[in-house]
Every structure is written in C-alpha cells, then in structure tokens.
C-alpha cells in the first residue's frame, strides 16, 4: 500500500553554496501523498535552505529536485512584507490563487482568524500573522505543503491546535507535507519520516522504526532523546566545534 502513494517531491543529493561556503549538501529524501516529512536540526543547520532548494527558490544548486505537482502551499520562516503596502488579510489570501469568499472564510476559520479577514495585514500580531500564513497556504488545497516553522510566535494552546490541524490536513486532503519544526514532541508523534540536518544529513529514518541515536542526542542534548524513546540509528561521525566532520 505504501508504494502506491504518489510521490510529490523527490530531492536527490542536493546542496547549495553561497560565496564558496556550503550551506547544506548531500540531502536526499522524497515526500509522498498523505505523508509528513520533517527536517530537524540546530540553528544554521540548513533546514530552511533545504526547503528553499526543494521549492526551486535558489537559482544555482547541486543535485536534482523533481516536483510532481504544481499545487504547492508554502509558509516561509521569515517573510519581510513591506508594511507600507496597503493590503488586507483577504487580499493576501488570494496572492497566488483565485479563491471564492467561501474558500477564504473556511481557511481562515480553520486557523481561527476568520474575524481578521478585513483587517490590514500590518495591524496583525506575530501569532495572528502566522495563522494567516498557514490559512493562505492551505486555502488553495495544495498537494504539497512546505511549512517552515509554521507555529512560531503562536501561543501555547494555539500551537497544539495548529499542529493537530496540520496532521488533519495531511490525512484529509491527502497532501504531502515537508515540515520544519523545533518542537520535537510534534516531530516524533506526527511525522512519517525525519531528517536530522547539520549542514548535511546526520541521520534519518522513520521515528517508529528507528530508536534513540547518539548523534541525535549529541545535537539536541539528553533531554531531547527522553522525549522519544523510539528514535535511533547508527552514526559514523562527530562534529567538531567549527562544524567540520570527524569520521569515527
């Protein structure tokens, strides 16, 4: 059954460099229909970069990216909108897709911000804006969702609700999700496949199959590995403080 799911995104051995410095390299994975693939890793480990590579945002990359759908919804990690631009939430919702008022209302309702529909984007709080970003990404009924830390700045209660929503969407709409998250609880409970990045793929696997891993522990600390007693695989290298890789 697993094999019958449509592959939506296939990333093969990709990497990108800026000013001769490698940001990330040698990353391979695929996202299938109804599947959540999560990227984890410390700050600066190349998670967002990997997502951007997968989305075709960089002009020069190493490796190959194949996308098998053009219905993509993206929630970027950082979005710097020029706040001098007059734009309401409803205008922002239809940025890349024509939507009916009903579709806009439903999407905003799902993320709990329907009441903000006619508000100016510049008047929203960080958490409210984040909810609008998620609503916009799901409103176009995408086949592939790329969520880069989608719940940043959202209050604790909202965070859990939004993650439940994301999980529900992947099941209901049968879309594939590439998720970047710092919330290891969520990652391990809701994800089908995890890639742990640190400039390259440190370890990867399905959380339910692979158990606790020394490399993961090294990256996230002992407390993180207590969260999930079920994540492990073998590591053949360590990272020195300057980021270079020491083979064991």
């Amino acid at each position: 059954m697993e094999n019958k799911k449509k592959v939506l995104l296939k990333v093969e051995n990709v990497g990108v460099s800026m000013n001769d410095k490698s940001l990330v390299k040698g990353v391979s994975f695929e996202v299938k229909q109804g599947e959540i693939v999560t990227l984890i890793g410390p700050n600066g480990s190349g998670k967002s970069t990997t997502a951007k590579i997968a989305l075709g945002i960089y002009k020069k990359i190493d490796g190959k990216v194949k996308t098998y759908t053009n219905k993509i919804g993206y929630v970027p990690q950082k979005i710097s909108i020029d706040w001098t631009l007059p734009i309401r939430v409803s205008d922002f919702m239809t940025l890349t897709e024509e939507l009916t008022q009903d579709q806009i209302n439903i999407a905003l309702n799902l993320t709990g911000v329907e009441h903000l529909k006619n508000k100016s984007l510049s008047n929203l709080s960080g958490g409210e804006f984040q909810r609008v970003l998620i609503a916009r990404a799901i409103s176009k009924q995408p086949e592939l969702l790329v969520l880069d830390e989608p719940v940043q700045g959202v209050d604790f209660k909202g965070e859990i609700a939004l993650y439940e929503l994301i999980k529900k969407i992947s099941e209901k709409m049968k879309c594939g999700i590439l998720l970047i998250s710092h919330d290891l609880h969520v990652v391990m409970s809701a994800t089908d496949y995890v890639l742990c990045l640190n400039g390259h793929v440190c370890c990867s696997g399905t959380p339910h199959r692979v158990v606790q891993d020394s490399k993961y522990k090294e990256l996230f600390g002992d407390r993180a590995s207590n969260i999930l007693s079920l994540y492990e695989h073998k590591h053949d290298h360590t990272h020195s403080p300057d980021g270079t890789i020491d083979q064991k």
Partner: protein
Amino acid sequence: MLDDFFIRALLAGIGIALITGPIGCFVIWRRLSFFAGTLAHSALLGVTMALVFELNIALSVFLISAVIAIFLLQLQTKTNLPNDALLGLLAHSSLAIGLVIIGFLTTIRFDVMGLLFGDILAVSKNDLLLIWGGGLFILIILKIIWKPLFASTINYDLAKAEGMNPDRYNAIFTILMAAIIAISIKIVGLLLITGMLIIPAALARNISNNPIQMALLSTIGGLLSILIGLFSSLEFNTASGPSIITAALLLFLISLIKTKKFSELKK
C-alpha cells in the same frame, strides 16, 4: 477639436495619468523611485541619440532605458556598491553624456528646456496616438501580469515557490517602466516624470487600505493633477510639467490632512 493645442495637451495628460496611476503604485511598493528617476535621466541621452541617428524619439528613449536597466543588472553582479550609488552613477553619467552630445549638435535646433520640463505646445497628433496607443498596451499588459507581479512584489520566495516566476515579471515591469518614460517625457519632461509616477501613488497610499483602491485613487489623483496643472499652466503661462507636479504636491498635502483626521477618529 484636436487642432486646439490645449485639447491635445489635455488628452495627452489624461492618457499619461491613466498609465502612471497604477504603474506608480508598483514603483512605490517595489521601492523603485530612484530607479525610475535613473531611467528618466537617461532619457536625455535617448533623445540626443534619436537626433543623431534620426530615429523616433520615443523608440530611442525606450531603447536607451532598456540598455541602462540591463547595464545596472550587470553592475550589480560586478561590484559591491550599494544600489543607490549605482543608480546615481548611471543617472548622472547618462544625463552628462546626453548634454555633451547636445553640445556637438550645433546644426540642430533643440529645445532643452522643453525636454527637461515638458512642453505643452509640442504635443502633436502623433504624440497623442503614441500616448493612447502605447498607454493602452501598457495597461493591458499590466492587467494580465497584475497577479504574479503583485505576488512577486509582496514576497519573492513565496511567489517563486508557488510557481509565479517572479524573475520574469520583474523584468516585464522594468520594460513597462522604460516604455512609460519613453511615451511621457514630452509632456511632463524628463526631470519630472518620476514625480508623476510617485506623487499620485503616494497621496493614494495615505487614503487607501487595499492595493486596488490605491491604484484607483492614484489614477484619480494623477488626473486631477493633470487638469489643475494644465489649466493653471495656461492661466499663468508656466511650464506644463512643473505646474502638473506642483498640483500633485498640493493634492498630496491635502491627503495628509485627511489621514490625520482619520487617525484621530480611530483614537
């Protein structure tokens, strides 16, 4: 009717306001005011080239603007200088080269003032055809690319990720800007066309809360500036371009008073 120079000037001005209204909004949103200014400065070089090689003035201005835009992109990849420095460099050097070449054209009678500040008397039937024909073309293109261009303006990454091809639309918009400058320097003048792009859009920003509304109000503001400017230019015998821009500034100041009232009401 078209034999009356003032009717021709009015029709030309109205045509220009209809184009600069929405395009000016994008110039503000994309922070391209200085870039528009650079293209306008390079128009003088375009005009002198037209005189030297006996080309159509609008076509020559358009081509020079396009060359300047491409040259800018090249410079950006070759140096670490900030964008505003590069724009200043291109604006003033192309203006200087244009003026130097004019010095050599001793046999051609040439109204530099008219070129810099616009000449109400100079609008011919052919100019009208160019403004309205070219203007309609620009507006149709803008209507077609509005959505992807707007998405690319809001956020490059989002537009690119969701299949909008922002690079293409950024390039098309640059071409539209070159075209608008080419067809409107005659009535507003090359030193003031940037004002016509920016000031109506700026006043519209003060009194609008969504993009479509801003584009409409910007167009209305532009039309009013043209009407007030041209009639007072006739009345007081002043140059058409400066009169139009002064009228636009007055409208901008009025829009400021209004926003102050709005914000007081909100409190």
